[in-house]
């Protein structure tokens, strides 16, 4: 959109501003990495240097040695994978039904997706706590999975619905004319076309449940059932003697999965936004 070439002064100003943003956004991340690599002594001295004097991986071994971290990471992984699989299995046929059939269910379901965004979790969490208690699912990982599935489901439905709509029904009709049965059409024609959408939805479900904190805080109590965010928050909560080095290392480790997955869908996210936000 450059009409005239901006003057040097303007360009300089723009670069200064951009640099400011890079520092604001990047500095805390670099500090996390730096703290994770510093020795306990260097942290205690309050060195403000970004590059540690003697980089060490001690903090990582100290963090991992905290028995809970492995257990919590494993719990988080199990919960996130179970949530992802269940969500996709449930959402895929539902999204197809929503996109291909014009019933009263469509406005109701899509309306709910929007409405459900507006309510504070605290309102839902108390009755949910009571329901899970009656079902003997309180303080149980399966209970947490059920809750996560239900809470990522509306948005995953919405996402997949959009992807199904990009598959023209004509393709299905053509396959039917060529003699393919319903199931065959769905499996060998529609499903492959939906693969990018399914991957994006699955990653979204995984990241959401991997990162989730409040439900886990309320619904899980037993130490060997906690998820990673819970463990990390208790790490902090132990007032007084917080060991910053291991804390930073643990936080770094806990971020890696969602960061990697996010990098995978990032392009799709911004692309989707483009098609969505511009039409407004």
């Amino acid at each position, binding site marked *: 959109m450059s009409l005239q070439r901006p003057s040097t002064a303007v360009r300089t100003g*723009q670069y200064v501003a951009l640099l400011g943003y890079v520092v604001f956004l990047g500095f805390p991340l670099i500090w996390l990495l730096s703290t994770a690599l510093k020795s306990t002594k260097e942290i205690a001295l309050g060195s403000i240097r970004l590059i540690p004097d003697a980089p060490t991986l001690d903090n990582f071994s100290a963090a991992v040695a905290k028995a809970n971290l492995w257990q919590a990471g494993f719990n988080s992984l199990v919960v996130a994978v179970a949530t992802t699989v269940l969500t996709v299995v*449930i959402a895929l046929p539902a999204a197809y039904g929503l996109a291909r059939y014009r019933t009263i269910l469509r406005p109701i379901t899509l309306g709910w997706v929007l409405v459900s965004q507006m309510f*504070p979790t605290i309102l839902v969490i108390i009755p949910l706590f009571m329901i899970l208690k009656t079902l003997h699912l309180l303080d149980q990982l399966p209970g947490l999975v059920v809750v996560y599935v239900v809470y990522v489901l509306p948005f995953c439905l919405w996402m997949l619905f959009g992807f199904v709509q990009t598959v023209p029904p004509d393709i299905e009709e053509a396959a039917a004319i060529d003699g393919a049965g319903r199931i065959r059409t769905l499996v060998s024609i529609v499903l492959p076309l939906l693969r990018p959408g399914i991957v994006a939805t699955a990653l979204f479900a995984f990241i*959401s449940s991997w*990162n989730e904190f409040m439900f886990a805080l309320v619904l899980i109590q037993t130490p060997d059932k906690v998820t990673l*965010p819970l463990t990390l928050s208790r790490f902090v909560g132990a007032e007084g003697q917080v060991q910053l080095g291991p804390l930073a290392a643990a936080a770094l480790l806990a971020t890696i999965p969602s960061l990697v997955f996010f990098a995978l869908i990032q392009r799709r996210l911004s692309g989707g*936004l*483009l098609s969505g936000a511009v039409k407004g």
Partner: protein
Amino acid sequence: MKTGNVATIAPTPDNPTTSRSRRSHRPGRSGRDAWFLLLPALLPILVFNVYPLLRGIYLGFTDARAGLNQDIHFTGLENYSDLLSNDLFWSSFRIGLIWAFGVTFLQFVAALGLALLLNENLRLRWLARTLSLVPWAMPPVVVAIVWRLVYDPNSGPISGLSQTLGFGQLNLLGDFSTALPAVIVVGVWVGMPQTTITLLAGLQGVDGTLHEAAAVDGAGSWRRFLHITLPELRTVIVAITSLNFIWNMNSFDLIYVLTNGGPGGRTMLPTLFAYNEGFRYGHFGVAAAMGNVLVVIICGILLFYLRSRLKGADK
């Protein structure tokens, strides 16, 4: 769960929908199939989402408490009159509104600035773009930990810098006067990515010929920004700021780990207040009532949002 975080990312299924689905609705495909396909999704949503929500709204009008086999009595507006006479409630709402408005406004200003820069042909913008996406993917608990390290009075860089310059130790999260601004900065940091990407998408949709025409007529870049860019972005701006406000009003994780409402309640957001009422003191009814108050406020904001959207469409 903060599913809302990514709420604008899905490909929006709009205009082609109607014509296409009308075609696909032909004999042989009954609505019963649709119910069959949707049932596995709708049933859990009804049981674990719709019902708890309605039940939660109802509990706000009762004396429900934690514990086994507690009888629940309908108490009408008692919870609300109790809340209204509770100073902590008022202060938490004041703090909640400062937090939500402050974060939303600063998020918007900072994100608009970054989006405008990213829309220019600058070197290194890939770096800013990548960096701006990272906080989005991080678990909120980790974001809180990162900033606790940055704000740490003993070993954090800010306090360290202040000591080097001779101003002494700084405990930004522990000081009464700086705790709220300090957490607002974190809120801006964590919410900027989504806002920036949304605004950038909006900017890229602005018709370039408008700018050219205005430039030919002699409008400088500032005037073009005011009279072309901003009006063209209007819908996107209203949408993202309203959503941000709702999410900020409902935010919990970040502050819970950063300060847990402290020091001395200076960062006690309404959601934290409600959580404490419900799960620390066992006052389920009061906590739910607090949730209802939040819903009313959020609905007010939503009305504002819809009205300004409609006004925009009139023009």
